[in-house]
C-alpha cells in the first residue's frame, strides 16, 4: 500500500468516526452482515431440520427466537434469510449499477441515441417495479437468475437517469472540451474524464438499490412468489408464519424486525454517504 493511499483510508476512517449517524449505521450494518454471513457457525440448528414436537414454541435457551409451525429453529432461519437478502442485494446493485451506468453514459454522451434510450427508460419507470418483478418471477420461475434480473430491471432507469444527468453537466466542462479538442479518443474521454464524476452519486445510489432489493425480495417471498420453501428467506418465513400469527406472533415479528433493521441500516448509511459524497443531491434534502 502506498503512503498516499493509506492516508486516504485514514481520512475516511476519521470522517466516519466523527459522524455519529454514519458510525451507528455502519456498526449496525456490519453486525447484521457478520451474523448473516456467519449463520452456519452461529446457528446451533439446521434451518431446515424439523422437530415436530417442538413446533410453535416461544424463545428458549435452545431456540433463541422460538420455533416455527414445523418446529424449525427460527434463529437459524432468520440468519440464513438475512444471508440470502444480502447476497441478492449485492448482486442486484452490482448489475443495475453497471448496466445503468453504461446506458446513462451512452445516453448522455451520444446525443442521437439519447431520446430513444430515455423514452425506453421512461417506459420502464412507468411500470411498478414490484409488479414487473412479480410477473417475471412468475414466468421464469424463482431461481437466482430470474430473481436478480427481475429486481434489477426496475432499478436500471433510475441509475441511467442519474448518470446521464451527471454526464450532461460534465461534458460541457472546459477540461472535457479541451480533451476532445486535442483529439483524445471518445472512449478515453468517457473513461478518464467523465466516469470519475459519476462515481460518488453512484455509490450513494447503489446503497439505496441494496435497500430496495432487500425489500423487493422480502415482498416476493411474503406474497409466496419467492424462492422455493426449502430456501429460508425473510419474506417467506413471514408468509409461513401468517396463519399462526395470533398464536405465535414471533414467527412474523422476528424476521420482520431483522428485515427492518437491515433496511434501516442500509438507508441510514446511504443518507450519511449522500451528505458526505453527493453535494448536489444532499442540498435537495438537507438544509
Amino acid at each position, binding site marked *: 500500500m502506498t503512503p498516499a493511499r493509506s492516508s486516504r483510508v485514514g481520512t475516511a476512517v476519521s470522517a466516519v468516526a466523527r459522524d455519529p449517524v454514519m458510525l451507528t449505521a455502519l456498526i449496525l450494518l456490519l453486525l447484521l452482515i457478520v451474523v448473516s454471513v456467519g449463520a452456519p457457525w452461529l446457528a446451533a440448528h439446521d434451518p431446515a431440520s424439523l422437530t415436530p414436537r417442538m413446533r410453535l414454541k416461544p424463545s428458549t435457551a435452545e431456540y433463541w427466537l422460538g420455533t416455527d409451525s414445523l418446529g424449525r429453529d427460527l434463529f437459524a432461519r432468520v440468519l440464513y434469510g438475512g444471508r440470502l437478502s444480502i447476497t441478492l442485494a449485492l448482486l442486484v446493485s452490482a448489475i443495475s449499477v453497471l448496466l445503468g451506468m453504461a446506458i446513462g453514459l451512452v445516453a448522455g454522451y451520444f446525443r442521437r441515441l439519447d431520446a430513444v434510450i430515455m423514452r425506453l427508460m421512461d417506459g420502464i419507470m412507468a*411500470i411498478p417495479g414490484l409488479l414487473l418483478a412479480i410477473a417475471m418471477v412468475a*414466468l421464469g420461475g424463482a431461481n437466482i437468475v430470474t430473481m436478480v434480473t427481475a429486481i434489477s430491471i426496475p432499478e436500471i432507469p433510475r441509475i441511467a437517469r442519474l448518470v446521464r444527468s451527471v454526464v450532461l453537466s460534465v461534458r460541457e466542462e472546459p477540461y472535457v472540451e479541451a480533451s476532445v479538442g486535442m483529439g483524445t479518443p471518445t472512449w478515453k474521454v468517457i473513461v478518464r474524464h467523465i466516469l470519475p464524476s459519476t462515481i460518488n452519486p453512484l455509490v450513494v445510489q447503489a446503497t439505496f438499490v441494496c435497500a430496495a432489493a432487500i425489500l423487493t425480495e422480502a415482498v416476493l417471498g411474503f406474497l409466496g412468489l419467492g424462492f422455493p420453501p426449502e430456501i429460508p428467506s425473510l419474506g417467506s418465513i413471514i408468509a409461513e408464519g401468517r396463519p399462526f400469527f395470533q398464536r405465535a406472533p414471533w414467527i412474523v415479528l422476528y424476521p420482520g424486525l431483522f428485515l427492518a433493521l437491515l433496511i434501516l441500516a442500509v438507508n441510514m448509511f446511504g443518507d450519511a454517504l449522500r451528505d458526505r459524497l453527493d453535494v448536489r443531491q444532499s442540498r435537495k434534502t438537507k438544509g
Partner: protein
Amino acid sequence: MFGIVIRRLLSAIPVVLIVATVVFLLLRMAPGDPARVIAGDMASEEAVAEIRRDMGLDRSLPAQYLLSMTALVKGDLGHSIISKDPVTKMIGQRLGPTLSLATAALLLTVFIAVPLGVLSAWWHKRAIDRVIMASAVLAFSIPAFVVGYLLILVFSVQLNWLPVQGYAPLADGLGRYLYHLVLPAITLSLIFVALITRITRASMLDTLGEDFIRTARAKGVPERYVLGRHALRNAAVPIVTIIGVAITTLISGVVVTETIFNIPGVGRLIVDAVLARDYPVVQGTILFFSFIYVFVNLAIDLIYVWLDPRIRY
C-alpha cells in the same frame, strides 16, 4: 387551459404505447417458457403445445406484438385462462376496494406529511426537526407487511378495537366502511408519509431561504401566512412531483396491503393470478397499473399549471 389539457392528453398516447411495448418485450424476454409454467411440471408436450397455441405464443414475436397492440387500442387487455372473463371486467369488479384504499392512504399522507414537513423545516435543526427526520428514516425502512402485522397485533388482537382483516364496501354503511379501512390505510400510507415529509421539509427549506420570504416577514405578514401562502405554495411543485413518481410505490404497497388485510382489490387480483398462473391477467393488470401511473402524472402536469402559473406547456 382547455388547449393544454387536449395537448397533454395527446402527448400521453406515445407514452402509453411505449409502456405497452416495454411490458410486452420484458415479459417475452423473461427467461423461461410461460406455456410450460402454466401447464405445470407434469404436463405432456402436447398439453404445453396446446397452451402455447391458445395463447398465440407459437406465432412470431412481431405477429404477437401486433396482435396484442391492436387488441389494446380497442381497449382489450385479454382474457383470463381460467374464468375466460375479459381482464378489463375483472379489474373493474375489484377497482372499488383498491381505489378506496389508495385514496384513503393518499389523504392520510397529505394531511400528516405536509404539516410535519412544514413543522420540521420551521424548526430546522432543532429537537422537533431531528425527531421528525429520525422517525421518517425509521418509517421509511419498516416494510409494510411488518407494520401491518404490528398494527393488527396491537389494535385488533390485543385491544380488539379494529377488525383483523377484511373489507366492507361503502354500501354497507360509512361506519363499517371506514372501520375496515383504518388499519390498511395507515399501513399503506406509512412509507409515503415518511417520503413526503422529507420532501416537504427539503422543499420548504429551499423556499424559506428566498428573498420574497424575507420581504414578506419584513412587511409584517403573520408567520402562518408566510408559511402557508408564501412558502408552501411555492414549495408545492416538488412535493407534487414526488407524489407522482411515488405512485409506483403506492401501487406496490397496494399489492402488499391487500394481501395482508385480505382485501379483494386489483392488487390481490395480480397475486392470485400469478399463483394460479393466469398469465393474461398478470399482463393485463400490469398494463392497467402502468397506465394509471401515466395518467396520474398527466394529471399532475396539469396541477402544475394551476399551482404555478409560470409553467406553460
